[in-house]
């Protein structure tokens, strides 16, 4: 039992397990994750070393090994989780093992140090004095030292000793870092158990109350309905995509409860579920908005290419009979309209622009856009704030453990016959070089002030 404890408490195990995790993680970056068996057969067959591809037989063999060892989904494989578990046990045991000692060092009674113990300290400095009165030396030393930013403690028994320390709690910095890793793991676990990741392709004007799990494509019920009112693609002048955006409406029991405009990096949150603009899919169809200006009635109709559509309220039939595109972007569409009384008209319109037209005295406008489906990533992750808390703890812990150190200084006044002197002793738990400089300049400062 004891040896098992020691095994898990050792830093050597930490190094070994970190090495193993780092090394095995490489495989998942070389072998694309999450594909089918056939895909891997094909993938390995076409890998070539020095010109000749491995071929289907070797490809098959590699594919078998890959799927057998779960390398095709290695970051959630049993063996990867095993390594992470060992790391976690290692961290916990190591901390339980060491923290009591650290607490002892933090709370240590520094004023009871014997002269013999102080004499062993490498960092020391003697300041000789004319004054021989220990009492008055002590009191001026106290004022000087505290004016230099070091709080002093006096020994109740030893009149000739003064002690000062800085940031004893900084010794806990490393353990804050280690704790932060546990917190991040806890957050990830919460997200895995209680949350879901899913996606859905939602065509314009359609609605859904289920989305599909990224893990196994199973249906996830949202508990409410989302409708995609429109999807828009914007381009820069040079043809690069500028923004993808969707207008979404949330409905509960058929009633609209929220409208939102989402973009990449600007998701919609509702009921703890977040909808991210992730992708899109263009269709051959159009979404046409028609307005009868006199009667002020409007309609928005899904319009397949080259198909005649009736709008009874506006007493119109129409269709998109032709479309031109430049570099895959729709440039203009030819519209055919007719009310049954007059001869039909055709004219060109630009996409996403309201265009007026007239049949005799009746005024209308038409707005035509290509139809898209918006690709939404849907996520519920109640663990994400725990993960962020862990990240914050990690940065705080790193700052404390690297930029702060537990520094201690003792001042002892020595009277040997006619000569009196202050002897300073210093230790620190890290950054010895930096502390040496601080210690010496502090001593210089004290020497100047006390002999002045």
């Amino acid at each position: 039992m004891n040896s098992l404890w020691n095994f898990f408490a050792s830093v050597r195990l930490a190094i070994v397990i970190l090495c193993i995790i780092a090394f095995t993680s490489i495989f998942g970056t070389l072998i694309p994750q999450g594909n089918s068996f056939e895909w891997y057969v094909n993938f390995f067959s076409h890998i070539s070393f020095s010109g000749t591809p491995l071929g289907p037989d070797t490809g098959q063999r590699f594919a078998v090994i890959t799927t057998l060892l779960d390398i095709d989904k290695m970051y959630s494989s049993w063996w990867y989780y095993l390594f992470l578990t060992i790391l976690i046990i290692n961290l916990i045991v190591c901390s339980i093992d060491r923290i009591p000692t650290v607490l002892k060092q933090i709370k240590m009674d520094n004023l009871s140090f014997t002269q013999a113990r102080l004499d062993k300290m490498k960092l020391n400095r003697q300041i000789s004095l004319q004054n021989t009165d220990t009492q008055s030396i002590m009191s001026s030393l106290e004022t000087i030292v505290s004016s230099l930013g070091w709080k002093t403690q006096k020994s109740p028994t030893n009149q000739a000793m003064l002690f000062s320390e800085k940031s004893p709690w900084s010794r806990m910095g490393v353990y804050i870092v280690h704790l932060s890793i546990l917190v991040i793991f806890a957050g990830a676990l919460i997200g895995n158990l209680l949350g879901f990741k899913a996606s859905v392709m939602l065509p314009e004007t359609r609605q859904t109350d289920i989305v599909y799990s990224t893990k196994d494509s199973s249906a996830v019920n949202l508990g409410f309905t989302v409708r995609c009112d429109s999807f828009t693609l914007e381009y820069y002048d040079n043809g690069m995509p500028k923004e993808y955006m969707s207008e979404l409406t949330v409905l509960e029991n058929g009633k609209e409860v929220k409208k939102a405009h989402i973009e990449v990096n600007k998701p919609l949150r509702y009921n703890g579920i977040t909808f991210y603009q992730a992708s899109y899919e263009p269709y051959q169809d159009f979404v046409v908005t028609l307005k009868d200006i006199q009667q002020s009635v409007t309609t928005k109709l899904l319009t397949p290419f080259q198909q005649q559509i009736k709008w009874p309220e506006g007493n119109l039939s129409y269709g998109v009979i032709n479309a031109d595109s430049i570099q895959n972007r729709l440039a203009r569409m030819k519209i055919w309209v007719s009310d049954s009384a007059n001869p039909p008209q055709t004219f060109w319109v630009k996409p996403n622009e309201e265009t007026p037209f007239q049949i005799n005295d009746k005024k209308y406008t038409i707005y035509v856009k290509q139809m898209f489906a918006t690709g939404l990533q849907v996520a519920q992750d109640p663990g994400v704030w725990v993960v962020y808390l862990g990240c914050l703890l990690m940065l705080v812990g790193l700052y404390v453990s690297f930029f702060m150190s537990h520094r201690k200084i003792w001042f002892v006044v020595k009277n040997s016959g006619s000569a009196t002197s202050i002897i300073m002793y210093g230790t620190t738990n890290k950054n010895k070089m930096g502390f040496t400089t601080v210690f010496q300049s502090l001593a210089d400062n004290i020497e100047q002030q006390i002999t002045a």
Partner: protein
Amino acid sequence: MDSSFILGVTTLTYLFSTVLYLIVFLFKSNKVGVFATWFTLASFIFQTFGVCLRWYESYKLGFGHAPLTNMYESLVFFSWTIIALYLYLEFKYKVRTLGIFIVPFAFLSMAYGSLAPEINRDISPLIPALQSNWLISHVVTCFIGYAAFALAAGMGIMYLAKSAQSDNKKQSGLLATLPELPVIDDIIHKTMIFGFIWLSGGIITGAVWANSAWGTYWSWDPKETWSLITWFFYAITLHARYTRGLNGKVIAWLAVIGLIFVLFTYYGVNFLLSGLHSYGSQ
């Protein structure tokens, strides 16, 4: 004068700085040393001006964004950060002989960015995924980390050169002017720690950004995974220091090897593996 001209000239001035620091190292000339420092500082200010101008030019083109968005701009920022950290180090430790081990990295980064045919140097607008305030914090934190690791590696080389010579018991010649081994060891340790903090920050800002764009803070995409591998590598190094039996030489080697991990994460992944971060391969 436009920014690409200024940044092109900066490549040459950093080359000249490298030559100056080589002279300082070879001939221990103090006069050249002072000149090297001031010249490098001037180049640095000039480069800063170039970066700001590029920023301004992007606004004039109508899609303003900080110049931190593609491989070229990141190379410029990488060299800028290396010089900034180097000048601080030189100021703090008052040793100019460090220069020859560090300034060449800044030159190489600029030279690669300015000359390599596969690198696109145009100021281009941002694709939707990159339009986020997290982009800037992510790139800045990562590259401060990378630059610190480059410094650590430069000093690792210096440590190895010097310790190879002291093994031979010829403590004279060129390397004798370098700081003492424990001092170099201390600087290596400190810069690696500094880099580790910033790399941690870089991974965190990247995760927060991914979560705000896609709803997943971690998706094991090759670049993410490699940054984690690199992070593990430095965590291992910090712990290795703690376990007894490892001397400064091993740490120096680890500092050098660490830079290989950094460069693979930064550069190799974009060109050799595919993933979300493929914007770098444009």
